[in-house]
């Protein structure tokens, strides 16, 4: 997946010379995960900027760069440190178009790794969809495949509105797969059926999609038909796709890594209820982290929903007569 991201950045920067990449360690080091590898050498220090350690000014200067007509692509080294920039992301970036009535086009992209499973220190693994999903004016996408990592990032960069691209830490090296050559764009706001099926649908995004697919494959051996809907976009939310899947299956599981209460999964459940209530044959079941902060290394495997917990939830909604 990392290669797909790096490829998208190279291609976009070559395509549009208004693009400026900025962030901590993105230039000379090529990013702590090498996502920006080679950009500095290729595009130079004017377009690939190592910033001081100030997430606030990374986000805030992106606003200014966009005002000047440039296209900033900023990295937040780990999504948990977006909190340091929340006053700019929530208060300024997301509202630039609205407060200036489109005088300025906020063509701004943020990339940030997130999610657990690789035993990182505090705040490195946190899922912030619950925070970011309630900020109108901001788009938020979360690819689950290498192809989508490329296609969503390219689409995000070209989108006239600000987009946060959430990249699964575990997927950087853990998710491999075909990536279309050349220009490849995945429209923001469109969910994807990752596995067909009609007994039950698991709605997920990011690395949870990978796990849900494995569960689907596993349960297929038992004759269960488990659809997996990969949201891909947190915002805009593909309400129609959620409605279709829920209607078709009648049974819904929603899974995410964040703490249960207030997680974005609640929004998905509410959407299912609003759109497909009469098709529901069982209560929607949420699978999620526990209602505690993302825990330390020895505990994280139990924190993150794994295949067993997702499978158990699937069985649970299927058991309802």
């Amino acid at each position: 997946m990392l290669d797909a991201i790096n490829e998208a950045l190279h291609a976009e920067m070559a395509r549009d010379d208004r693009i400026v990449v900025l962030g901590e360690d993105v230039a000379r080091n090529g990013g702590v995960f090498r996502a920006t590898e080679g950009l500095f050498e290729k595009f130079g220090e004017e377009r690939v900027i190592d910033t001081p350690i100030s997430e606030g000014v990374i986000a805030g200067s992106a606003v200014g760069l966009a005002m000047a007509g440039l296209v900033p692509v900023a990295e937040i080294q780990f999504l948990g440190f977006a909190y340091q920039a929340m006053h700019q992301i929530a208060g300024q970036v997301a509202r630039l178009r609205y407060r200036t009535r489109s005088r300025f086009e906020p063509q701004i992209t943020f990339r940030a790794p997130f999610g657990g499973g690789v035993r990182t220190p505090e705040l490195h693994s946190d899922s912030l969809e619950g925070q970011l999903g309630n900020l109108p004016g901001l788009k938020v996408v979360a690819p689950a495949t290498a192809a989508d990592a490329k296609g969503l990032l390219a689409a995000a960069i070209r989108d006239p509105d600000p987009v946060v691209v959430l990249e699964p830490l575990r997927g950087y090296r853990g998710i491999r797969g075909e990536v279309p050559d050349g220009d490849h764009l995945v429209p923001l706001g469109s969910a994807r059926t990752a596995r067909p099926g009609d007994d039950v649908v698991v709605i997920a995004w990011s690395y949870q999609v990978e796990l849900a697919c494995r569960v689907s494959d596993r349960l297929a051996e038992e004759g269960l038909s488990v659809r997996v809907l990969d949201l891909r976009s947190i915002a805009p939310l593909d309400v129609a796709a959620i409605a279709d899947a829920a209607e078709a299956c009648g049974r819904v599981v929603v899974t995410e890594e964040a703490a249960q209460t207030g997680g974005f999964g609640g929004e998905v459940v509410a959407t299912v209820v609003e759109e497909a209530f009469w098709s529901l044959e069982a209560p929607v079941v949420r699978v999620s982290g526990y209602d505690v902060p993302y825990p330390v290394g020895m505990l994280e495997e139990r924190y993150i929903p794994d295949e067993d917990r997702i499978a158990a939830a699937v069985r649970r909604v299927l058991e309802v007569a």
Partner: protein
Amino acid sequence: MTRPTDEQRRGMLVDMVTARVQAQRLWNLQRQGRVGTLAPIDGHEAAIVGAVHALDPDHDWVIPQYREPLALRRYGTEVLDRFLLYNIGHPAGGHLPAPLRVLPNQISLATQLPHAVGLAKGLTLQHDSGVVLVFFGDGSSSEGDFYEAGNFAGVLGVPVIFLCLNNQWAISTPTHLQTAAESFAAKAAAFGFPGVRVDGNDAGAVYDAVDTARDRARAGSGPTLIEATLYRLGAHTTADDPTRYVPPEDLEAARRDDPVDRLREELVALGLWDDAVNAEVEAEALDIFDDAFERACAMPLSDDAMLDHCLAEDTQRMARQRERLLADTGGAGG
């Protein structure tokens, strides 16, 4: 040292007097309930006008906090038009149309400072010779954004001028509770570029400092921090009661150094200003204001304006919200 010419100083006084009387008018409208809460400009006229007179409106950008708009006449009357729309709560008040190089008010303190740095960087990347002047208050200097922006600007060496209007107060908080630093200008040491302190009641001195900083910026020598010391002569906002905390003797002393009076007296002494001119300038300022206010109040607003300009295109959900909103209001889209 490039003191402004007498002609320039006269131009400044026109703008200062204009700002002063228009501010009075606006205050009255607020008291009549016709505009929302606002922050009066009184006492800040010389610093703002002096600063922007050192700029080139075709090239240089101005980023206000929220007290400045009435003093930005140099950037064109459109600024006033938009400011009045802003004050009546019309969404078009945030839209300062291109090619105006002025941003709308910033309410979230100090968040405009990182914007200024990015904008200045963007200008240099595009070989645009413009300079960015960004206003902020003494109180706003305590936000992390100020320091992060100053520090990054120093590293980048971008053409930005940080202009701190030290009016001695942040609502009720006096400067000695805001910082123990020797001055706000002294904070530039944290960023590695010059910090200068000027008498903010002296329009010419501010002009001079900004002019020097602008030359420096255009020469590629990087940012400057300027602290203009002055005194907030009015309330923090129309919702504030300064008698609760401003020592009356301090206010009295400050009033004796009113920046508008000071420049007026100087120009009168030089034979460049008199009561008749003054009356004429004031009358014209009010005419322009009243006219602009009338237009602002007549500005149409579509029933679904609320949903416009959030994203370039409505999301699925917004499209439905728009339908519902129009159904609720019985209106048609705009």
